[in-house]
């Protein structure tokens, strides 16, 4: 079989259409460049009635929303999950890494939580504070102008609080707290834990004529048909297509490798078209990898040539290394004060209206770095699982649990909305011995060698999770409630979730000034091939106690500006 090559040479080929790839597409297309965007999944538009799940009722589905076909429930807008048929990944030793992939235009941005936090000044130089990990080669001042631009282009609600490591921005006004969030504010204040309005990328106010304003259905995880939340398709790719018609979309196209020439420079990519299962080649002056931290690492490691025998960009041997996910531990509590609720529509935005940024000084703690607290609860739409164990909370009142008959209706209504949940999302220390690599014995259904993961949490992360659990229990008590389930033990890593489960994997192609100790430079350009850039979360040196998307967007914009500049100067 001959590999078919297109005649056209693109100025840039972008691999992946999520946050990083979408932003690169927008910036490069706006600069008038001719680009290709190559996406492994199908085309997706949140306003396409055939794909839409927003505003559907559970009874429109025979399984009432159960998560059999989509792991976060069948209305969730991610085509993929922890496991994808025909596209395995493997584990080394006793590793239990979970890798979430969403193959569709816009990638995981279609369903994500939209928690949009800037990294703070300390987050870029945290080694200076505690001697752990590595500093970034750039600082907050380098990224701030781009965070500002991202805020204005995409829209994020929040408030300027003047906090030292949770920077202010250009915020839309936040929605008012819900009832359980008022309980949280009250309880947290008793413990001197600060609470502020959350910072999320939904439009509570108009920002332009192209996108609608939030109508408070609480279903951002289903992707918004009026484009009132940030999804890469609706906010970046579609506008990029309109800005000059220089964008070619290749969907259902799985990139196998970056092709290179005798000088070791990239010439384009080769990909498999899922529809005819044949291999094709695209030619480009620049290749931008934004397939997700692990997928981009995989493409690099699979791009072996005489010039790059160890994989492209891997002379340092660091591609795939320093992989790290946010720490995560969760707990729920029953709050009697939230029983017997009157009914009204409190769907709000999809997710929390308030949150707690990291608030403590590590000098008094037995672990480094911190975590923020996410809050959930309320009288949301019933879905599969609603009504399970309808009167378990009777045990708190010495009443029998179980039974049948009309009293169950009363139980369901009595307890509806009386649970509050907390998620701690924190910072792990990046370590060279946590990594993904190519499994030499396994390929996927396209014949592409797959990733194998090696990952172990250290005591730092476990102790952080222990602290989360203690805090959550105290918070629940401060709200007059009872924690549900038992306190996770040491043997259970204090409830620390398996790595990958928070879906914030970063660090696999980390940036630095020293080519021996990093994969890309501070403009996310490979040290080993100057026309290859990485604009997903691979270049992150550290994760911070924040979610990574807003920083992916800001850094992708910054790197893409640099690409435009370098192309103009004919340096690449």
């Amino acid at each position: 079989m001959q590999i078919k090559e297109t005649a056209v040479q693109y100025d840039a080929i972008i691999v992946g259409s999520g946050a990083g790839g979408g932003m690169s597409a927008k910036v490069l297309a706006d600069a008038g460049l001719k680009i290709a965007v190559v996406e492994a999944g199908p085309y997706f538009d949140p306003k396409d009635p055939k794909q839409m799940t927003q505003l559907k009722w559970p009874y429109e589905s025979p399984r009432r929303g159960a998560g059999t076909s989509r792991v976060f429930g069948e209305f969730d807008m991610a085509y993929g999950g922890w496991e994808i048929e025909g596209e395995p990944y493997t584990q080394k030793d006793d590793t239990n890494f979970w890798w979430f992939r969403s193959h569709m235009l816009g990638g995981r941005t279609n369903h994500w939580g939209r928690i949009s936090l800037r990294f703070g000044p300390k987050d870029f130089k945290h080694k200076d504070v505690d001697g752990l990990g590595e500093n970034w080669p750039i600082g907050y001042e380098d990224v701030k102008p781009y965070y500002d631009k991202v805020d204005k282009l995409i829209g994020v609600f929040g408030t300027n609080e003047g906090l030292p490591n949770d920077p202010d921005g250009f915020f839309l006004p936040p929605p008012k707290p819900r009832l359980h969030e008022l309980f949280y504010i009250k309880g947290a204040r008793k413990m001197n834990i600060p609470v502020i309005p959350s910072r999320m990328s939904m439009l509570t106010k108009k920002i332009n004529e192209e996108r609608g304003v939030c109508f408070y259905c609480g279903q951002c995880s289903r992707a918004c048909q009026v484009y009132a939340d940030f999804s890469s398709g609706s906010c970046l790719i579609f506008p990029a297509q309109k800005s000059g018609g220089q964008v070619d979309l290749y969907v259902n196209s799985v990139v196998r490798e970056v092709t290179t020439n005798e000088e070791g420079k990239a010439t384009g990519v080769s990909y498999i078209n899922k529809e005819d299962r044949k291999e094709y080649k695209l030619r480009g002056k620049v290749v931008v990898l934004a397939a997700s931290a692990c997928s981009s690492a995989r493409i690099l490691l699979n791009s072996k040539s005489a010039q790059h025998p160890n994989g492209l960009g891997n002379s340092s041997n660091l591609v795939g290394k320093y992989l790290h996910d946010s720490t995560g531990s969760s707990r729920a509590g029953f709050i009697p004060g939230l029983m017997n609720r009157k009914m009204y529509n409190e769907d709000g935005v999809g997710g929390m209206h308030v949150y707690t940024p990291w608030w403590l000084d590590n000098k008094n703690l037995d672990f480094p770095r911190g975590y923020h607290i996410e809050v959930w609860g309320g009288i949301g739409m019933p879905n599969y699982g609603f009504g399970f164990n309808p009167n378990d909370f009777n045990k708190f009142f010495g009443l029998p649990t179980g039974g049948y008959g009309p009293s169950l209706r009363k139980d369901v209504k009595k307890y509806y909305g009386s649970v509050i949940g907390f998620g701690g999302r924190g910072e792990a220390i990046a370590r060279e011995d946590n990594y993904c690599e190519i499994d030499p014995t396994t390929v996927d259904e396209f014949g592409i060698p797959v990733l194998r993961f090696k990952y172990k949490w250290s005591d730092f992360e476990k102790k952080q999770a222990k602290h989360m659990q203690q805090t959550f229990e105290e918070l629940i008590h401060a709200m007059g409630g009872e924690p549900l389930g038992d306190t996770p033990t040491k043997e259970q890593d204090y409830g620390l979730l398996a790595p990958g489960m928070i879906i914030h994997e970063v660090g696999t192609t980390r940036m630095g000034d020293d080519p021996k100790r990093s994969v890309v430079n501070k403009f996310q350009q490979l040290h080993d091939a100057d026309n290859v850039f990485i604009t997903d979360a691979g270049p992150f040196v550290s994760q911070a106690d924040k979610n990574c998307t807003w920083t992916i967007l800001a850094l992708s914009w910054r790197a893409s500006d640099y690409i435009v500049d370098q192309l103009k100067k004919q340096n690449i």
Partner: protein
Amino acid sequence: MDRRKSIKSILLGTVAGGLAIHGCKPGEEQEALARELAKDDKYFGRTPEELEEIAKLNAEQFFNEHELQTIEVLSNLILPPNENGGPTDAGVPEFIEFMAKDIPDLQTTLRGGLMWLDHKSNTDYGTEFKSTVEESQKKILDAIAFYDPKIPMDEHPLEIQFFNLMRNLTLTGYYTSKVGIQDLGYKGNMPNIWDGVPEDVLEQHGVAYDEEWLAKCVDQSKRGVIAEWDENGNLLT
């Protein structure tokens, strides 16, 4: 059968033993089904692969007629109908039939539990469960309907696990149905403008908004005005 009705029967699995679309050659059936569903604007955003999986499950029949009737009788004992209907109106038996195929792990507990019910009823009353008088049915249920929440469910005897599962599926099937959502009083899943917790609810639960916080929140009368900021990030509009 008109199109909408046929889709409904497909979705609810009420067409026993096969697809509603007849007269197609093998292989065309799935395509025809996909075409039908794609035309239906009430359908819920499935990918072609997901449509295929649903069609496949609907083409299978797990419970026999007697089992389905027993499920219906039992679910109506668990949650007797009121003015907002009950499990039958909510399609609970069809839902349980679908879930048993969708999550095969449920099958043995459900089917084994139904056999247990009939065995118990036959032993004590000389008839199978669904035909036993309600008073006797309830006597059987009284012995299996309660559980100690301190003991994990999978350590309870099968009949208690079975009843717990049936109760869970009945309630979730009912409260995710149109009639059940109405009974519950859930008001959302429609475009609206969130502007805070109603005053009487704040009072009932003994909480209040503080003015400082409210001052930061969105003024919904200006939500349609394009946002502009000064250079320090203060919203001007």
